């Protein structure tokens, strides 16, 4: 990745903006683009640049803090913290499997062949190694 990491929201997507921000930040955190010890831009700055309400960004930061990704302290920038990977609970795995099946179905319905989907999944898995 070149330059600072970016997040993009799409108002036409139907997904709530809070979820879009949280999801994209989570991707950056999981992929290591935002490393432990990194300070995130302030809620005010991100909200102004995205043209959304302060509370929307604050809520996304709060969600990530609850998941253990961020440390939020009043009067200080949100910090990325070292997060121990929890053992995946059975119901989480089942939920993930269900969502993956739905996603694959959507992609196939959109015309993507199964081989291409497998390639994409392998490419994503390769990025994590």
């Amino acid at each position, binding site marked *: 990745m070149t330059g600072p990491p*970016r997040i993009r*929201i*799409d108002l036409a997507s139907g997904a709530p903006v809070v979820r879009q921000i949280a999801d994209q930040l989570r991707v950056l955190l999981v992929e290591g683009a935002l490393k432990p010890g990194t300070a995130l831009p302030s809620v005010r700055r991100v909200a102004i*640049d995205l043209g959304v309400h302060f509370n929307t960004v604050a809520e996304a930061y709060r969600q990530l803090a609850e998941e253990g990704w961020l440390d939020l302290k009043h009067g200080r920038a949100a910090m990325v913290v070292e997060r121990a990977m929890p053992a995946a609970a059975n119901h989480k795995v089942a939920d993930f499997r269900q969502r993956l099946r739905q996603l694959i179905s959507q992609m196939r319905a959109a015309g993507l062949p199964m081989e291409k989907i497998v390639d994409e999944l392998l490419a994503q898995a390769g990025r994590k190694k």
Partner: protein
Amino acid sequence: MTNEMAARAVVGGAQIFAGAMILAGAFLAPRNKLFGVRIPAGFRSSAEGRRAVAAFRTIIAIPWVLGLAAILFGPSAQFRLIIVLAPVATVIAAVAGYATQHRRLKTFALPRVQTREVELTLEPDRLPWFMWLWPGPLVMLAGAARYLSSNWDRIPEQFPLHWGIDGQPNRWGVRSFDAVYGPLILCTEIVVWQLVLALASWFGARRSPLRRPVAAVLIAIAYSMACAFGQVSLHPLIGIPPAMLFAPIAIIAPAVIYLLRKTREPRDSPEPTADECWKRGILYYNRNDAALMVETREGAGVTINFGNPWSWAIAGLLAVNVAALFLFPALRTL
């Protein structure tokens, strides 16, 4: 040249300048906008685009030319009325023409930009160097006040406070606290307001290439105002060379040119302001946008997001400036 001829020439020149600036407004806007509407590339040179600009010009040209003729050749007895009506009629025509074309062009508007992107830069949001020049105007005003105070006895009992368009004094003040210091106090309030606007335009606006030149213009205005009011205040004591009257303009001009050049530069992403939040394409009101200042859709610069609670603080400061005119009776003559 008689005083009346000189006055007609000055006001006529101002009418020509004001009309030319209004006509040029459509070309000072970013290339992807016309009358506050986001347009596709090439729309300006299309038949519809040319028709909209021509209709706007025609609406303005009528009061502009008639006003100019009245200023230059109208009856002397009605001259005072004419110099008020001519620019007012031109401005009313401009606002009406703008609103009409804004409504018409909406049918050609590009779909609303639905994606917004932000760089998670960890660089601190530092003020540009020229913002640290902010104490300058206040120092200039304090210096003028200090000079007046130490030379109080030399100030004439009566001195000019206002000059007519023929350059002759037409209102006078007496040596009193409000007449001597009033202009400096009023200017201090205006300068503080400009500095607050400059800070708001930096910290309350999106990180765009326009942020820097807008702040530069606001700082330049503060210097320009301090220069102009300082001259007025010191006039009873020291003769101001006529050339110095152009100093305030000389201070602002480079910053405005910088802003205009930046405005016309093509940019990647437009500001994420929703069309429905623009009232008549001019006023922006969006309670869900954290920005206090947003880029204008027409012309160069920024405007206030009236949906942001802090916009009331800025409006309140402006109200204080207006109230000062009533606190210092001598200022009403300015």
